[in-house]
Every structure is written in structure tokens, then in C-alpha cells.
């Protein structure tokens, strides 16, 4: 049951082949992790999928709909929502105003000029519910930029959740987090899986193995291997390029 499919995706930056004929499949209800060493092209792939960059070739299909050529906001409409590796929130606004803006995006047109937004209780209810979902209900009046890092990451996730996506793209949600925050973010992501499929890009291997149903390994812009956690852990090349110690890599080289 494939929900989301990437086929033969290519992106070049000059002579650099940042995304090299990538195929990827996320099944309904699945948490699919995308791992790979620095510079493997993970962020490029995320930006291609979310529509920040245009691919040079290939197809992206979400729930039977080709979204390859759609602008970003139409992809969100189609059910694809994302978070950012570098926290992307409205820093000068309160948490509530952040969430209100997210709620408004999915509650009818924003081409309404005269009625004050603050006179729409439905938006405030949605904002409240989003805050509760990610554990920020007590912080609604705080200025987003003044929150601790972990809370800002949660807010970033909440802004993406407002779209009620079919597929949620999480670009290194644990980036810059200590072990405690990581743990809490892992719990949060785990709690989301009943409502949406998740494509998780993450460096924190503990979190990846705790959460992912399947894992794709990206190296030099290409998918080296895809499979469940056991397959990936046991795959000699993966150990060599990514997980492995130097020793393992040397052994691998000797064996080959």
C-alpha cells in the first residue's frame, strides 16, 4: 500500500549531481527514515519533495496524485506538510499567533479583508488543540523566539501539523537537541504515526531505530539500500559508509 512514491528523481547543481535517480516509497501508516552521511543529499531531496527546488527529472506521487510540478502551497493542499532543519517559526510573535496563522491556512480563504481575525473563535480552538498536541498548551502567550530550543522545535512541528497532512516530512527534528529533548521529540513523533505517514530525516540513530519501520540510506545522492532496521544494521556497505567503525570499513574493503 504505497502512499507516497518518488521515481527517478534527479537534481543537478552545475556539475554536481546532488540527487541521482532516487527512488523512494513510503507506505500508508509508516515511519520511513532517510539516513546518510553529511553531504549525501538528504536536504536537497527534502527540498525537492516539498517543492522548494524543482527537480531536473523524475516524478513525485502522493496518494495517486502527481505533485512533481506543483508549487509548494498546492502540495500542502494535496496532503504534504514539512518541518525545517533550521527552526522556521515566527520568532517575534506569540506561540498562539504562530498557531493561529497555521490554523488560518487550512480554514478557508485568507482573502478576507474586513472581519478581524481575532473574532474567529474556531481558529483559536484549532490553535489550542495544536498546542495541546505537541505539549505547548502552557506556553501560548510566550514569544516564540524566546522559547527554549526544544519547545521551538515542537512549535515547528505544530505548524506543519495544522495542515492535517497525509505525509509529514520531518527534516532532522532532533537537530541540536540534548538527550532529554530528543526523547520527548521521539515520543511526540511516535504519537503522530496513527494519523499520518512520516518521512523522517535524522542523524540521531537511537531515534531512527526506535521509530522507523523502514529505512532508506542515501549516499552520494543515491539510495544505497532500503529495508527494515535489521536489514540496514546488517548491511555491510551501510556499516562501511555510515554506521561502521574504521575497522569495519577496512575489513569490508579487504573482503571486496
Amino acid at each position: 500500500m504505497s502512499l507516497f512514491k518518488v521515481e527517478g528523481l534527479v537534481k543537478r547543481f552545475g556539475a554536481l549531481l546532488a540527487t541521482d535517480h532516487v527512488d523512494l516509497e513510503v507506505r500508508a501508516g509508516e515511519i520511513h527514515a532517510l539516513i546518510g552521511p553529511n553531504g549525501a543529499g538528504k536536504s536537497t531531496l527534502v527540498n525537492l519533495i516539498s517543492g522548494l527546488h524543482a527537480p531536473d527529472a523524475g516524478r513525485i506521487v502522493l496518494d495517486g496524485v502527481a505533485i512533481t510540478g506543483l508549487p509548494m502551497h498546492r502540495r500542502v493542499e494535496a496532503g504534504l506538510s514539512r518541518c525545517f532543519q533550521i527552526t522556521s517559526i515566527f520568532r517575534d510573535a506569540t506561540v498562539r499567533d504562530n498557531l493561529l496563522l497555521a490554523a488560518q491556512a487550512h480554514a478557508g480563504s485568507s482573502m478576507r479583508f474586513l472581519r478581524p481575525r481575532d473574532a474567529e473563535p474556531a481558529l483559536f480552538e484549532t490553535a489550542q488543540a495544536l498546542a495541546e498536541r505537541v505539549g505547548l498548551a502552557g506556553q501560548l502567550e510566550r514569544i516564540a523566539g524566546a522559547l527554549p530550543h526544544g519547545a521551538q522545535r515542537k512549535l515547528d512541528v505544530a505548524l506543519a501539523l495544522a495542515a492535517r497532512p497525509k505525509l509529514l516530512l520531518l527534516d532532522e527534528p532532533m537537530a541540536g537537541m540534548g538527550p532529554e529533548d530528543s526523547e520527548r521529540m521521539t515520543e511526540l513523533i511516535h504519537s503522530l504515526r496513527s494519523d499520518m505517514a512520516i518521512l523522517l530525516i535524522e542523524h540521531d540513530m537511537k531515534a531512527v531505530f526506535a521509530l522507523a519501520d523502514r529505512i532508506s540510506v542515501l549516499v552520494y545522492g543515491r539510495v544505497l539500500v532500503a529495508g527494515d532496521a535489521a536489514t540496514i544494521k546488517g548491511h555491510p556497505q551501510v556499516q562501511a559508509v555510515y554506521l561502521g567503525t574504521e575497522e569495519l570499513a577496512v575489513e569490508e574493503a579487504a573482503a571486496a
Partner: protein
Amino acid sequence: MTQDKHASAAARWTPWLALALLGAFPLLAPALGLDFYVGFVRRALIFALAAAGLNFILGFGGMAALGHAGFIGVGAYALVALVNAGVDSAWILWPAAVALAAGVAALIGLVALRTRGVYFIMITLAFAQMLYFIAVSLRVYGGDDGYNLPARPTLGLGLDLAHEPTLYWVVLALFAGVMALLNRATLSRFGHALTGIRDNETRMQAMGYPVFRLRLAAFAIAGAIAGLAGALLVTNNSFVSPAVMHWTQSATLIVMVVIGGVGRRWGGPVGAGVWILLEEFTKQYTDYWHLPLGVLLLLIVFLAPRGLVAVLQRKPRAVIAASPAGATE
């Protein structure tokens, strides 16, 4: 984003007081020997209108357009073209000027809004220059020499626009109406989306906002308001020349918004008023009025980097909890 929620009582009645004083001015002016200044304040109100429109896209939308006088010109010449064709009702002339300016702004926006930063400044300037040279080349309407209105447009309803105070009150009413609409718009869904785009465009796209369409709508609204200002300016002066749309006029409008307060509710009008007053006073003392005006502007920018309105509002900031949002908790 939340500035307006902290508005104290003083901030709420100040605009009404200002409106009352402005409304009474033509009645008091003769007694004070200030008759001449009725026309002067009227002109200031018209520029305040244009500056408020520019502040909507510059301050709330983050679009530094350096071609706003071009839309004033479109409105002005739309009126002139219709007058030249025999139309004399303000009910047709003014709405036509607004509609044409909005349309031209939308077309220019289709191209210009694909760029950002310095490129956006340059491309809006380039379009405004094109409009300027079109006006210069329009021989029918006087080209460089400009065009004299044979008479002021008619309004009906027993209002004679040739009567100076009447025109003043009509301009004031339009100004107040547009300000009321703009201030509502900044608090609406559209206004929140617009400031969201200003603060974090990528995130707004990622949340599903049709960013381009929203910015285009704001740009066309600002163009429409500039068009109204242009039509009122010709009505006021009974004359127009391409000078109204010279690029230095566009720059002056930006300066007005900056000294008033970028993204402040009353930043445009306050800035326009202060600028035009300063211009008037320095002109009374010297022909070389640019220099003292420049020095005064430097002082304002150094002493009030966030605009004069920000200085006037620098008061208690402890009423955050009293926002209407608090009611839903």
C-alpha cells in the same frame, strides 16, 4: 504582530481627536489667519493617503516598492483622460482612476513580485520610469508642460468641489474612510497572512499559503489607494504634469513612511504630515531648503529609528494579558 493589541486608551482616542481637529480646521482657519493653509493641509492629506497605501505593502508586506508615484500618476492621468473626453462627474472620474491604478499595479506586480530585495526595488523603479515617460510623451495631455483642468469635477449632493472647504472635507472623509479600511485590513485574516509573509515567507508557503497571490492583492490595493491620491491631487491642483510621477516622488513617499514608522498603523500619515510641514517651513526661510530638511531628517532617523509613531507610542507595554485572545482560554 501583536502591537495593536496593546493599544492603550490614549492610542484609541488620539485618531478621533485628530480627525475632529482636522475637520474643524477650515472653520477655525479664517479666525487664525491661516486661510492659505486649508489647501496646504488638504494636499498633505492626499499625500498621507498615498503614504498609508505604501506603508501597507512596505511596512506590513515587506515590499520596498520604489515606484509608488507611478500609480499616483496613473490615477491622475486616468482622470485627465476622462475629463479631456468630456466626463466631469467625480463619481465616474475617481473610481475610474482607482480601478485603472489597481489594474496597472496588478499587471506590474505580476512581473515585479517574482523578484526580491534590491531587484524588486529596481524593477518597480523601472516600471515607474516607463509610466513617467509615457506621461511625458502624451502630447494630448500637455506632455512635459502638464494639463490644466478646465474646472473641478462635480460631485452633486449639493457639494461644490470648487468651494475650498468643501473639497477639503471631501478629501478628509475619503482619507478617514481609507484609513479605517486599511486599519481593519491589517487586523483581518489577510493582514495577518501579509505580515506572516513579511516575517517568514518560506514557512508561509510550507503552511500552504498562496504567497504570490496574497502579495499581488496587497500590491494592487496599495496601487488603488495611490490612484485615488492621484485623482484627488489633480482635483486639488486643477493641474497635473509628469512631475507627480517622477521617481524622486516615489523616494519621498518611502522617506515619509520611514520617518512616520514602517509597519505602524499611523506611520504613513504621520510621516507625510511631518515631511510636508517641514518642507513648507524650511522653504519659508531659505530657497536652499533641501539642506536643512536633510539635517532634520537625519536627526529624526537617529533619534527615532523606528519612526515617530513608535516614539509617541513608547509607553506602558505591560498590558499584554488584556488581549482579546485571552478570552478564549
